[in-house]
């Protein structure tokens, strides 16, 4: 289902589903790593975000996303929902 309007709630619901945590635990400043996310969860996240934004994200772009915004090899850095939202918004605005 392609979401229209603000992506915050759909993406928040996805994060909650992917990490199996209550949606209320997912706030813009929440560290996803702190909620238990690991590399493979971000692939899951992107797959589901693709469904919401209604388009496939070329591998090169989500590789960049993972490797720069979400350091794939070392996920020790806290990842916030805000970064994921920004990624989802960028993807939707691409033509």
């Amino acid at each position, binding site marked *: 289902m392609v979401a229209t309007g603000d992506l915050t709630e759909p993406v928040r619901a996805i994060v909650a589903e992917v*990490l*199996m*945590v209550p949606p209320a635990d997912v706030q813009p400043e929440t560290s996803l790593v702190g*909620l238990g996310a690991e590399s493979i969860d971000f692939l899951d996240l992107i*797959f589901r975000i693709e469904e919401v934004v209604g388009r496939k994200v070329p591998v090169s772009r989500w590789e960049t996303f993972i490797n720069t915004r979400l350091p794939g090899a070392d996920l020790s850095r806290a990842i916030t929902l805000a970064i994921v939202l920004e990624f989802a918004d960028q993807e939707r605005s691409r033509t």
Partner: protein
Amino acid sequence: MTERVAITGIGVVTPIGIGIADFTSALRAGRSGARRITAFDCEGFDTRIAAEVDDTSFDAGSYVKPRKMVKHMSRSAAFAVAAAAMARCESRLLAGDVDPYRIGVSLGAGGMGPVDLDLLAGQGVAAIASARGQDSDELDIPAFAREFRARTNPISMLRGLPNLAAAHLAIQQDARGPNNTITTACSAGTQAIGEGLRAIQRGDADVVFAGGTDAMINPVGVLGFSMLGTLSRRNDDPEHASRPFDAGRDGFVIGEGAAILVLEREAVAKARGATALAELAGYGCTCDAYRITDERPDAEAAVRAITLCLKDAGASAEDIDYINAHGTGTQMNDVTETTAVRTAFNGSGLPPMSSTKSMIGHLLAAAGAVELAATVTGMLHDFLPPTINFEVPDPACMLDCVPNDARSAQIGAALSNSFGFGGQNACLMIRRW
């Protein structure tokens, strides 16, 4: 003398009970776990019965931290992880008791490849269908790739890897020692426990989570075994379909589940004051090297597995009070297995030999582990688990199969047999601690 290896904990997820207490009660009561398949719409299948784990009483998430790890697990991995958590709880092995690098995993698991229905049947087949040319049966690979990528969540690929169940178990139990997956079909659970014993004996580990897990009650699994002619078709009477050694047997009832045992070096178990449930005393394994699914009619290699196991334990046939049979309920297995034990026990009285598959079903890669768990529980609670559904003796399977009702008896030492496609033969021996 070699140092002994103790079994200090057991966890089971089976069609007749989750956790060792419920499992033991069901074995004693002779309860069947077979029923009409609920996992998928089986209408039109030749076999429409199976021994399923009751999902209303199995919550994988309650055994897993963090909870989201569940979605990365195949059904069989979730069974193994849950069984290991139960086994650890019983063993009272605490973090810090043993160096994590001295804790290993030895797991019997299902065949290689993606057996998860959503991956194989759902996404793969759909992608193939839409990528097939209209006028040709040729598969357009680039089109298949586009379709597959559009439909398939990348994380689902990881659920099909054969070693992932053991990896999940290790993550949950912080077991950083040797981690091995044995994929020898229906003897995998028995061999995994035997190889776990060896890992301790050769000094590679002090504690090993050993056992087996499998979950093949999906359309492909059921069709596959059905097409090989191995499954019972007694669809109108599921509870009486698994009837090992009975003249009216017509194949096995496919089951699912897991059993994990905590194996522990004697000195380590003693040092932390652990209670030993039994000694894992011996292991023997051979291969028929004969035919893919036919067994050697003289059962020579199976006999050798049994005698090697006895020798490994420093025991003789007279020491054995009970045998848990492979006892699938196929025509061939039960005859060949009877021949094997008769030959191996030549000159000694043949002890009672029952098939708990009559109740539990055939748990494939988990079978041997669940059956060793049944044997240990019989030893601990002084009873022989029965072979239920035994009505008409087969002259080719003349033995005391503990027909229909559990029997009070003390077990000092026991064997558990497993045989698998490909000619795999394996035998374990336990002894009262």
